[in-house]
Every structure is written in structure tokens, then in C-alpha cells.
């Protein structure tokens, strides 16, 4: 099944929730409403065969897009060897998404990492703790407004190209 056919099926099932479809360099990205993410992921896994969640991450578009964040799901179909990407926009003042760790167990650590580094929380996550940073760390380092040198330090004045 081509990516186009997959997108058509998604649109047929979740017409109002599909916000945008982009094709770039042969890869298809579907943006959907964040309220429907668990439904869409379950549908992708059970009906369209995308049984493998490769990766999940947050992207900070500070000053470039509103809402500010995107949570990105890279899916893979082990049977047909196809990839597809799902994105959900997440607003800064309400930075949370429903967890998909009920759909794929692997999402557990990915979502913890996204919470730790990007500050997006996941509703219903079984164990939402920091994973890479120390437990008592303040702030979320991968946010664009978090200084590269860390908090409370003079910005590095040397070459940083």
C-alpha cells in the first residue's frame, strides 16, 4: 500500500483530526490533532500494520510556529518495510499529550526522555520521571530558550559557530 493510500485511509477514518499532510524527500508526515493521538496510533498499529514505533521525540519551534512544540512519532511497518511519520502540535501553556505507552511499550522511555529534555508531559504515563538528567534538575535543556551552557553561567564568549 502506498503512503498515499495510507493517508487516504487515515483521512477517511479521522477526517477532522488530520490537520496537514506533507511529503518531503519521499517521506510522508501527517499532522493530527493531539486529542486523537492514541486513537490514531491504535488504528495505525492494528489496521494499517505499523507495528513498530521507531522513535518518539519533541521539537521546539520557538518563535517559528504556534503552537510551539511538535511531538513526532516515527512509525515502521515490519511486514511491508514502510515508514510514516505522525506529528501532533502541542501548545506551550498546555504542554501535555496522552501517552502512547499503552499502544507500544517502547514509548515508555521515549516519553520520559521527551518530558525530561523538552518538558512535554504525557497524560497517563505509568512512570513519568526524568531519565537522562539528574532527578533534582530544574528546567528542560532541549528547549530553545534554555541556555547552551546551562543555567546561572556566563555565556561562552569564544568561538561557537
Amino acid at each position, binding site marked *: 500500500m502506498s503512503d498515499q493510500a495510507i493517508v487516504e485511509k487515515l483521512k477517511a477514518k479521522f477526517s477532522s483530526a488530520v490537520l496537514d499532510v506533507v511529503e518531503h*524527500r519521499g*517521506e510522508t508526515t501527517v499532522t493530527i490533532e493531539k486529542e486523537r493521538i492514541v486513537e490514531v496510533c491504535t488504528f495505525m498499529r492494528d489496521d494499517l500494520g505499523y507495528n513498530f514505533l521507531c*522513535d518518539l521525540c519533541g*521539537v521546539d519551534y520557538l518563535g517559528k510556529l504556534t503552537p510551539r512544540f511538535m511531538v513526532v512519532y516515527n512509525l515502521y511497518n515490519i511486514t511491508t518495510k514502510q515508514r510514516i511519520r505522525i506529528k501532533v502540535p502541542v501548545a506551550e501553556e498546555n504542554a501535555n499529550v496522552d501517552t502512547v505507552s499503552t499502544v507500544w511499550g517502547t514509548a515508555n522511555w521515549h516519553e520520559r526522555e521527551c518530558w525530561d529534555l523538552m518538558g512535554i508531559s504525557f497524560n497517563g504515563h505509568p512512570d513519568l520521571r526524568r531519565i537522562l538528567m539528574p532527578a533534582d534538575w530544574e528546567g528542560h*535543556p532541549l528547549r530553545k530558550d534554555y541556555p547552551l551552557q546551562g543555567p546561572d553561567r556566563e555565556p561562552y564568549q569564544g568561538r561557537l559557530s
Partner: protein
Amino acid sequence: MAFNTETMVINMGPQHPSTHGVLQLILELDGEVVQKATPHIGFLHRGTEKLSEYRTYHQIIPLTDRLDYLAPMSNNLGYVLAVEKLLGITDKIPERAKVIRVLMNELTRLKSHLVWMACHALDIGAMTVFLYCFREREDITDIYEKVSGARMTSNYFRVGGLSADLPDGLEKDIRDFAESMPGHIETYEGLLTGNRIWQKRTIGVGHISAEAAIDIGITGPSLRASGVDWDLRRDNPYSGYEDYDFEVPVFEEGDTFARYKARLDEMRQASLIVLQALDKLKPGPILADCPKVVLPPKQDVVETIEGLIHHFKIVTEGFSPEPGEVYQGVEAPKGELGFYLVSDGSPKPLRMKVRPPSFVNLQGLPQMVEGKFLADVVAVIGTLDIVLGEIDR
């Protein structure tokens, strides 16, 4: 008198020789049986993804060396392929560069698997294998040094090709090594496969089913040892892998012994691919002819004004891919290594996300050890083949 029993919580790592780095495990034990295992990671977090947002696309390549430092060229390859895809120059890479990439990538697979086998066997108590494996690994680090100048942090591939051609006479060294490798693998097998202690420590230990492995996201040889026939080199070929003739070893058992056999067979296949790559190696350019994004050959920088200008522009300012996003997965020795790049049209990526195979594979550890003996934890850490450099990034 009332008899009181309770579980005991012990701490393993981050300073423990068999955690292969700085992994910390909190183990809850009932006698010798593990009730609950909780991995704690992040001790080696260096902020690779944050740093990459402040560097041009070329400056990120050395950062990728330091992810899985036992297989640096696989990381280089995954990253440069992702950038090439983002630029849309994937089909402009010259044949010689593609062949050398495959050649070095398979040597890297051997290098990584040799360290896995050495440490895994050492953890379980087989000292000799460690010495033999590191002897062969030394040959590969020598090849690395001749090719890139560094034994571990190679920084060899470039967007659009390679940083330098192979030095004269190296092809013969590589061929001799690849031809000797099957014999060495026989030696390791002779020491381990039929060894009853080895079998007792590995057969049935750390079992995981195919469904559970897919759910938790395990990839690479660990997944193939659970009976899932999936290899990105064959199924989503990159860098010309579709032109090579190799088998993907798959085992059904899903235990530590199956993962051991899967990796051994992969080493045999890797040495065959190295030989095929050497046969394909023909003289030719090693950099794509895309002057706006690919560094010009050194000769042109010295002799032509255009070459000098392009070199200067790319080194000082970098290049700006058009806005968009790509994901590129490669079959690294440990599993699927993915790079997700987002460009906003500036010379630095808006976001680089690494999908490290070890990070995801480690997530399967608790369900593989819970309910098993404490001694099996060490065997399972070894069989998962984790590297904390890429787990913590």
C-alpha cells in the same frame, strides 16, 4: 517466634565492571531471584542533541563518533546519509565512496561484535575469548588508523562522500584480514559453543518473545534472535547494500544463546561483505559533484579559485538545506540507529534526534531478568550489547 521475610534491595553500578559503562541497576531480590530491576541511566549525558543545534551540519560529524564509540563509522554513516537525504543528493554519491562506506561499515560491525563477544564471555567467566577477540579488534583499529588517522573516533565520512581516499596498499591488508576472519570465528566457537558451562549460562537465559521484543522496540541481532526477519540493509537498502549478496541470520529461540549465534553468523556475513566490497572497489571520485554543499577535493582547494571559495564558504558558513524533515535509519551493529533531522533553512539543524539502538534495547532488560537469578543479570546485560555512550548521548 515469628519468622520474618522481606526482599532486599541492592545497587549494581554505575561503577561495576559488568555494566559495560556507567549503567546503574537497582535490583530487588528475594533470595537470589530478581523481583524487580530498575535501570538508571544518564551518567554519561553530554547533550549531543543540544550541542548539534549550535553547529553546522559538517561540525556535527565528530559528535556522532562519540555516540556508540565502539562503532563510530556506523554513526558517521547514519548521520551523513540523513543529511544527504535532507539535501536531496542521495543519488549523486559516487560509486567508490559508497563501496568504501559499506566496506568500513562492515569492518565496524566486526569491530563492535568482537568487543561484544569479548566482554560478554569475560562477564560469564571465559577469559581466553577476551584476549583473542581483542587481538582481532586490534587489526581493525589499525585499519581505522590508516584510513582516518584515529583508532576510535574516526570522523571519516563527509556529507557527499569521504574525507580521504584509502591509502595505498591498504586493500591488501583488509583482504588478508577478512579472509582470516572466518578461521578466527571458528576458534571462538570452538571455545564457547560446545562448552557446557557456556551453554548452562546462556541457553534459556534472558528469553524474550518476538511480540514482546517488537512491543518494547528491540532491534538488530537481538530481535532477529527472537525470530523476526528484519534487517535494514536488506529491507530498506542504503549506500548500495542492495548490490551485495548476504544472508540475514534468524534464530527462533529468543534466548542469550540464540543472540550469541546470531551475532556470530553476522560476523561471518560481514567478512563476506567486506570481500565483496573489495571486489567492487574501482578507481573514481570519492566526493559528489555538488559544489554548494560538498567539500571540494583538496587539490581543487589549492589550485582553483572556485574550489577555494567553495571550501571557504562551506567551512565558515556551512550550507542551508531547504526546510523539511527526514528520518534515516541504518542497521548499526546494535540495531536500528536512526537520525531525525529538522531543517528550518538555516545552516544549523533546528533539531537532531538520535534514535540509539542500545537505549531502546536496554528498556527490555527488566522483563528479561525479572524472576530469574541474579547471576543471569550479568549475562543479559552482556547479551543486549549496550554502549552507554549512545544510551546517554
